[in-house]
C-alpha cells in the first residue's frame, strides 16, 4: 500500500533512526516497500507521543492563541466577532479536512502534481492499523497521527486570513469562503509542497510527488503552504472588501494589548509543535527545529523593538509581539534546516523587513490590512522561504537535504544558489496561485451573497450586529 506524507524535502534523522529504530529482523538493512504488517513493526512510541503532543500544541495556536492575539488588536465592539470567526473556522476546517482535505492533500494525483484524489475521502480506508511515512526509511507513524497533525495546519491557515479584513466581514459568507478556499487553494498547496511517496516508496515511483516538492523546494513547516498562502489571500480579501469605515480618519487603537500579549505568547509556545512537530519524528532534528524556533523568535522580538526605538523613540509591546510573530513566520520553512546562529540572523532580518512593510509600505499604498496579515505572514514567509535556501547550506551549519530517489536515502549535495532559485520559484507560484484564486473567490462571494456588512452594522460593531452579544458586559 502507498503511504504518503508531508515533507520538507529534507530531513530524516536517518543516521539516528536507522540504527536505533530497526526491529531485530531488519538488521541486514532497511526493507524497500515494506508491507502493512512490516510497517506495523516500524512504529516508534516516542515519535507517536511527540506528534500527538505537537498536534495539540498547534491547535492551541488557533484557539485560543490566534483568537486572542487578533482579538486584542481590534476595537472592543468587534472583539467577540474575531473570537467567533477563529473558533468557527477551526471547526469548519477540521470537518472539511476529514471530509476531503486529507485525501486531496495526501493521496497521489498520478500524473497530476497539483492535487490528490478522493480515494481517502471521509477517511475511507484509514484506520488504527494503517500507517504514514516519516522522513526515515522503515520508520512509520499511525496514519491517524499524521491526519491529526496535518488537520491542525488546515485549521489555522484560513483562520490567519481573517485578520486582514477584521471588523468588516459577515460571518456566514466567511464560512463559505473558508470551505471553498480550503478546497481550491489550501489542499492543492499542501499537496504540491508536502506530498510525496515516502522514503521507502519513492525510488520505485520517482514521479509520485507534488509539483513544488518535485522541484526540490524546502519548506520544513509551511512557509509557503501556511504563511505566504494565508498572507496573500488576506491581501486579496482586504482589497476586495475595501477599507473600514473611518480608516485613517478616526483612531482605531487596539482594545487590549494584554490579550494580544497572551495570544502572541501562546502562539510562540504552540509553534514548537508546528515547527518541531513537522519533523514527524522525535530525534535530534526535532531539537534543531525546536531551538531555531526559540532563538529566531527572541531575536525578531528584540529587533522590532530596537527598530522602533530608533524610528519612534520608544520600544512598544505591540512591536515586540509583532516581531516575535514575524520571527516565528520566517523560521517556519527553515526550522529544521538552519542552525541557531543563522536562525537568529534570519529572524532579526525578517522582523525588520516586516516592520518596514507594516509601517511604511502599507501607509504609502493605503490598503487596510487590519491586523497586518500580509505585512507579517506573507512578507515574513517570503523572507523565510527564500532565506531557507541560504541557511540550510551545510557550509553555514545547516542540515542540507536528503536524496530520497535512492534507497536507502542519502545526503544530497547542496548548491546554495540553485536552492535559492528553487525557493524563489516556490514563493512565486504560491503568490500567483493563491493570490489570484483567493481574489476570484472573494470577488465571487462578494458579488453574490455579499461579504461586507452594511455601514450601519459595521459602525455598530460586528459583535452586536452579527452575533447579538458583547465581548464584555461590565
Amino acid at each position: 500500500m502507498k503511504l504518503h506524507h508531508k515533507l520538507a524535502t529534507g530531513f530524516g534523522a536517518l543516521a539516528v533512526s536507522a540504527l536505533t529504530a530497526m526491529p531485530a529482523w531488519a538488521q541486514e538493512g532497511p526493507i524497500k516497500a515494506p508491507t502493512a504488517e512490516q510497517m506495523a513493526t516500524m512504529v516508534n512510541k516516542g515519535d507517536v507521543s511527540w506528534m500527538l503532543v505537537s498536534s495539540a500544541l498547534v491547535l492551541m495556536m488557533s484557539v485560543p492563541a490566534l483568537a486572542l492575539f487578533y482579538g486584542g488588536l481590534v476595537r472592543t465592539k468587534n472583539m467577540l466577532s474575531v473570537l467567533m470567526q477563529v473558533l468557527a473556522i477551526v471547526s469548519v476546517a477540521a470537518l472539511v479536512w476529514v471530509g476531503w482535505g486529507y485525501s486531496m492533500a495526501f493521496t497521489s494525483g498520478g500524473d497530476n502534481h497539483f492535487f490528490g484524489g478522493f480515494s481517502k475521502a471521509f477517511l475511507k480506508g484509514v484506520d488504527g492499523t494503517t500507517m504514514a511515512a516519516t522522513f526515515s526509511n522503515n520508520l512509520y507513524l499511525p496514519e491517524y497521527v499524521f491526519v491529526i497533525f496535518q488537520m491542525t495546519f488546515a485549521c489555522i491557515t484560513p483562520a490567519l486570513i481573517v485578520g486582514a479584513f477584521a471588523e468588516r466581514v459577515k460571518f456566514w459568507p466567511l464560512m463559505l469562503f473558508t470551505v471553498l478556499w480550503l478546497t481550491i487553494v489550501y489542499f492543492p498547496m499542501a499537496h504540491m509542497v508536502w506530498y510525496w511517496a515516502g522514503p521507502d516508496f519513492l525510488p520505485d515511483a520517482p514521479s509520485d510527488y507534488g509539483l513544488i516538492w518535485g522541484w526540490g523546494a524546502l519548506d520544513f513547516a509551511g512557509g509557503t503552504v501556511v504563511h505566504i498562502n494565508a498572507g496573500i489571500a488576506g491581501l486579496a480579501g482586504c482589497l476586495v472588501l475595501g477599507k473600514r469605515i473611518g480608516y485613517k480618519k478616526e483612531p482605531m487603537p487596539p482594545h487590549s494589548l494584554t490579550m494580544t500579549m497572551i495570544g502572541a505568547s501562546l502562539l510562540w509556545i504552540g509553534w514548537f509543535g508546528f515547527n518541531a512537530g513537522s519533523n514527524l519524528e522525535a530525534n535530534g532534528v526535532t531539537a534543531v527545529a525546536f531551538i531555531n524556533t526559540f532563538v529566531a523568535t527572541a531575536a525578531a522580538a528584540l529587533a522590532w523593538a530596537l527598530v522602533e526605538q530608533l524610528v519612534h523613540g520608544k520600544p512598544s509591546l505591540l512591536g515586540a509581539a509583532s516581531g516575535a510573530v514575524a520571527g516565528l513566520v520566517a523560521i517556519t520553512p527553515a526550522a529544521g534546516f538552519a542552525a541557531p546562529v543563522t536562525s537568529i540572523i534570519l529572524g532579526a532580518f525578517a522582523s525588520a523587513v516586516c516592520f518596514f512593510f507594516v509601517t511604511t509600505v502599507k501607509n504609502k499604498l493605503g490598503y487596510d490590512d487590519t491586523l497586518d496579515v500580509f505585512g507579517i505572514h506573507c512578507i515574513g514567509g517570503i523572507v523565510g522561504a527564500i532565506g531557507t535556501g541560504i541557511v540550510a547550506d551545510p557550509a553555514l551549519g545547516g542540515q542540507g537535504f536528503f536524496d530520497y530517489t535512492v534507497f536507502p536515502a542519502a545526503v544530497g549535495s547542496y548548491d546554495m544558489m540553485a536552492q535559492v532559485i528553487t525557493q524563489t520559484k516556490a514563493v512565486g507560484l504560491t503568490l500567483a496561485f493563491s493570490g489570484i484564486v483567493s481574489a476570484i473567490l472573494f470577488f465571487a462571494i462578494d458579488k453574490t451573497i455579499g461579504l461586507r456588512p452594511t455601514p450601519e452594522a459595521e459602525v455598530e460593531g460586528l459583535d452586536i450586529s452579527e452575533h447579538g452579544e458583547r465581548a464584555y458586559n461590565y
Partner: protein
Amino acid sequence: MKLVIAIIKPFKLDEVREALSGLGVQGMTVTEVKGFGRQKGQTEIYRGAEYSTNMVPKIKVEVATTDDLSGRVVEAIQQSANTGAIGDGKIFVLDVAQAVRIRTGETDDVAL
C-alpha cells in the same frame, strides 16, 4: 462660601492635599478627568499608525471653603501644584449659595 475647582497634574495631587490639610481644610472631592488647554496632547503609535490624543489626563479637585479661607486655599493650590511647565492647570472659584451636612442638617459654614 466659595467652591474652589482646580484642574491639576495628577502627580501633584498629594502635594496639593498636604498643603490644604495644613490650612485646616476638612475635605475635598477628587475626580480623574481628561481635557485640553494649551498643552499639546500625547501621541500613541500602534504598528506605525499614529493617534494624536489632544485630551490629557488631569485631576479635578473640588474644595468648598468659607469666604475667609478661600483666598489662602487658592494660593496653596497654585503654589503646590506648580511645576513651571505648560499644562499645570487652572483654578476656578465659584460662589456657593448653600451647603448642608446630610447627617445633622447643619447648614452653610458649619456644614463645611
